[in-house]
């Protein structure tokens, strides 16, 4: 039995299998405990590290909880006016076409105030990547109803649940942009379980690869939780998301390019 290693024997540099990527800075994330933003940040940073494009990636931070994303990524970042990240990304990509450009937006930013910019950028087919975090709520401002709030879902401005007669229907903007000719890759992923995180990372990798081949706009939606806005613990929020968000926002690829060779 003397061969069973102790913790001190295992924790050595040669046995390392997973550590925090260098593309993330050492700043502590400003997000609530259990928020999907942190996981989404990490997998984006891991994809950038694996592709070796840290010095030629430009990220665009939105308005929302992730407005401080430039503090957490060790890449060039620019912050855009509310909803205008796709317009800014278009400008950057056209001026610096050899750079990898991505926008990181929430549902209030992308699907409410920035709908026009999103749809026209997708229709023009500019070569950048949109990463869309959908938690069905305006998280930063206190959990108000967003365009993506589910029917019957409670929020601080729909305390009896969203009534579609008076408050309208939820907007499936990912399906909407998949109809447009400018998008090459449209997918919906989640980051609450290890399997989903690994799939989402593959999808992000594909999105950046397609961008490198100038195939058009790639759009990755990540269905996420907002445990503070939903008034739940992180574990309950993830279970609630599986039971309620996924039937309405089914995961998987919505549009893939005709030629899949990479």
């Amino acid at each position, binding site marked *: 039995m003397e061969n069973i290693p102790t913790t001190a024997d295992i924790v050595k540099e040669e046995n390392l*299998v997973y550590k925090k990527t260098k593309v993330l800075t050492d700043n502590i994330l400003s997000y609530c405990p259990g928020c999907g933003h942190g996981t989404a940040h990490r997998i984006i940073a891991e994809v950038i590290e694996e592709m070796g494009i840290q010095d030629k990636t430009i990220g665009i931070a939105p308005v929302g909880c992730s407005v401080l994303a430039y503090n957490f990524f060790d890449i060039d970042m620019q912050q855009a006016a509310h909803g205008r990240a796709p317009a800014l990304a278009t400008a950057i990509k056209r001026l610096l076409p050899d750079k990898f450009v991505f926008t990181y937006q929430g549902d209030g930013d992308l699907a409410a105030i920035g709908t026009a910019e999103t749809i026209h950028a997708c229709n023009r087919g500019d070569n950048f990547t949109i990463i869309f975090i959908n938690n069905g709520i305006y998280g930063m401002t206190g959990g108000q109803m967003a365009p993506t709030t589910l029917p019957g879902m409670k929020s601080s401005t729909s305390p009896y649940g969203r009534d579609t007669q008076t408050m309208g229907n939820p907007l499936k903007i990912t399906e909407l942009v998949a109809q447009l000719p400018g998008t090459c890759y449209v997918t919906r992923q989640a980051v609450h379980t290890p399997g989903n995180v690994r799939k989402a990372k593959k999808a992000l990798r594909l999105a950046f690869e397609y961008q490198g081949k100038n195939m058009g706009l790639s759009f990755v939606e990540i269905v996420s939780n907002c445990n503070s806005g939903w008034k739940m613990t992180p*574990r309950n929020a*993830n279970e609630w998301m599986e039971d309620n968000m996924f039937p309405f926002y089914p995961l998987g690829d919505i549009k893939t390019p005709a030629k899949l060779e990479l």
Partner: protein
Amino acid sequence: MAKVKGSIVIKIEQCKGCEVCVPTCPHEVIALSKNVNGKGYHYLEMVNDECTGCTNCAVVCPDAVITVYRVKKVL
């Protein structure tokens, strides 16, 4: 007996105690501590030595506080 052995190192002061990683562990190695860190969160700790270094906990951790080590071959 060849058995995969692993271990994790947790950055206690950066852990926010969200518990998202706890149900992902196949061997129930991790749980929240009774103690709190400097921010007042119950941080993550290893409660037994069954860890296989599968990296599930590190992959779902929103704050990237977990570093995973694995011994490839034990004779």
